[in-house]
């Protein structure tokens, strides 16, 4: 399965990149500059001091970790990397390992220090996106449709996403309903759910307010780092909605406040 190629796998003994020994990978000036920039942003993030409190390597976090059972991933290791002062080790972890985490928070609940390990991995993911790391671009490539949905109507799953060619493993009962999905949605006794292209019908005012939040909070700029074409498409959609919204104001006699 091609989607696995971006995530860590156990290779023959001795071929794995070391995640804890600084200097285990080739260094070049550009990489070191990027690593230093990310390291600085990471350590100065207000969440760092709140989330990373200490570690005695007890491994309680990893014994409960679902991702650790299937990937070369360990929340203990991630916390150790967050704790130490090696920009290149941090960058190395952000290339692949951070994307294995399930964000279930089991590690947090088990940690005697009260570390927020899932949270610090989220911070690393944010930094990977904001800095346009190749790993973020690659991992999120099949995620474009979800990003489009969440940026425009603020929901993540639409009924028409469940297409047979992409969700074949969910079985015939999951995909067969695509044959007349409009009628099946109409048979849900809740008006706002009787749509197929969104989880529910989101009012235009709500969508525009959401985009205002994304713009003012810097999320739109953040997304440009990994997918500028997608951002351009989203901005076109929002511009069209703004025009339509003005037309609707006139139609319904909604005046300027």
């Amino acid at each position, binding site marked *: 399965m091609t989607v696995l190629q971006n995530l860590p796998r156990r290779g023959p003994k001795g071929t794995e990149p070391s995640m804890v020994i600084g200097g285990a990978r080739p260094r070049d000036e550009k990489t070191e500059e990027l690593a230093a920039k990310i390291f600085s942003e990471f350590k100065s993030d207000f969440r760092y001091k709140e989330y990373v409190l200490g570690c005695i390597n007890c491994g309680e976090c990893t014994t409960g970790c679902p991702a650790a059972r299937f990937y070369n991933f360990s929340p203990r290791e991630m916390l150790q990397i967050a704790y130490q002062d090696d920009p290149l080790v941090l960058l190395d972890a952000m290339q692949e390992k951070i994307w294995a985490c*399930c*964000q279930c928070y*089991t590690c947090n609940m088990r940690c005697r220090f009260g570390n927020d390990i899932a949270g610090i991995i989220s911070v690393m993911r944010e930094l990977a996106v904001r800095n346009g790391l190749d790993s973020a671009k690659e991992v999120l490539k099949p995620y474009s449709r979800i990003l489009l949905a969440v940026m425009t109507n*603020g929901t993540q799953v639409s009924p028409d996403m469940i297409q047979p060619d992409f969700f074949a493993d969910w079985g015939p009962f999951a995909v067969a309903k695509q044959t007349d999905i409009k009628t*099946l949605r109409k048979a849900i006794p809740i008006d706002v759910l009787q749509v197929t292209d969104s989880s529910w019908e989101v009012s235009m005012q709500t969508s525009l307010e959401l985009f205002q939040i994304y713009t003012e909070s810097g999320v739109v700029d953040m997304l440009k780092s990994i997918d500028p074409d997608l951002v351009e498409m989203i901005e076109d959609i929002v511009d069209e909605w703004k025009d339509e919204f003005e037309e609707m104001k006139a139609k319904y006699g909604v005046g300027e*406040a």
Partner: protein
Amino acid sequence: MLNADQIRDVINQRAQARTFSDKKVHDVREEMWRLHDKGELVVIPIEKKNRPVEVETLFGWKKRIPTDYLWHHKSCGQCGNIPGYPASLLWFMNQFKTHYLNEPHQTSCTAWNYHGSGTSNPVALAAVAVRNWHRAYETGTFPLIHCGTSYGDYKEMRKLLIENREVREKVRDIMHHMGKELAIPEEIVHYSEWVHVKRNDMAGMVKMKLDGITAAVHEPCHYYKMVPEDAIYEKDTNGGQRPAPPTALIQALGAKVADYSTWYDCCGFGFRHILTEREFSRSFATLRKIKPMVEEAHADVAITTDTGCVTTLDKSQWIGKSHGMDYMLPVLADVQLAALAAGAHPYKIVQIHWHSSPTDSLLEKMGFDVAYYKKDFNSYIEELQRGREPDMLYKPHDEMEKYFAVNKGHVIMDN
């Protein structure tokens, strides 16, 4: 063997005496009210009309669950592919004559995307939360959060907004640009908590046979692991060692809850994994959850209280056939099981046809004439195809609300 009181004391002492670090668990609600009094934010209060019911959380703290005048904060995953989940909840509210609003003026919490992709930030997540909460505030209702991840995320956002002045000011500015206040609900309440405090009313409505049903409970991680101190625990349920919902409901309905060794594991959802890397999700769900639920608990049904968990446990099973793991365990939300127990239509209300794992044997065991209900639903579908207006749980919104947030006939907007 410790009793429930002793266990709670041990947990409390451990949490308060984490000498490894300075981190102490404290109740952010006290500071929230102080900020409210200083005019830093507006607390959306639980009022008498909300008819709150008091429960206890992990450390024995009190939490009030409003039961009336509710604003449905829908779940994008539930509405997208498990629509019987919200439909069953609204159906119960109609039975109880609960006042509620279910509107198009809501976004999701967007945290599914955040936890999966990292493409957001704390200010955006908090602002999205406040925008939704504010809609409940301006309509005189109280937000009821359907999704476990939204529930966990919103509790994190509440804490962030209370403890971080910089984030609070940025979010307040964004809200002011939209003509809104920085409003935070007095409590963050999950729908399963509403179900929990209404469980005896639901038990009084049981029409179908539950005494032969064995359920295996999957406790959603984001219900009790993200902000553990705010989840409901009761001394008489699960020995006070696991959250009370949905076990207390299932037992009140008359079904049996059976244990299994991996109850503490997550479902395998993974946020990004369930959509674009399902090799992991289905392997974990099958091997660590479904298999022990069937082989150890001998369950007739898996019951959980979150969007991602129902999706992952339900959808991940079919492919198991290719490895000889043909478990086909029905997976339902607590409120769907309760609606079925109360005799709600399995297809028109519980919308069970959206589930991938077969449910016929469960329905038959509960006493449903499955062939009759299927025929009835198929006739309904044919009528819809011929142009019949669909049955609704409430009066549909006016066309104008596709565009504008309206409250009592007035458009609420700043721009």
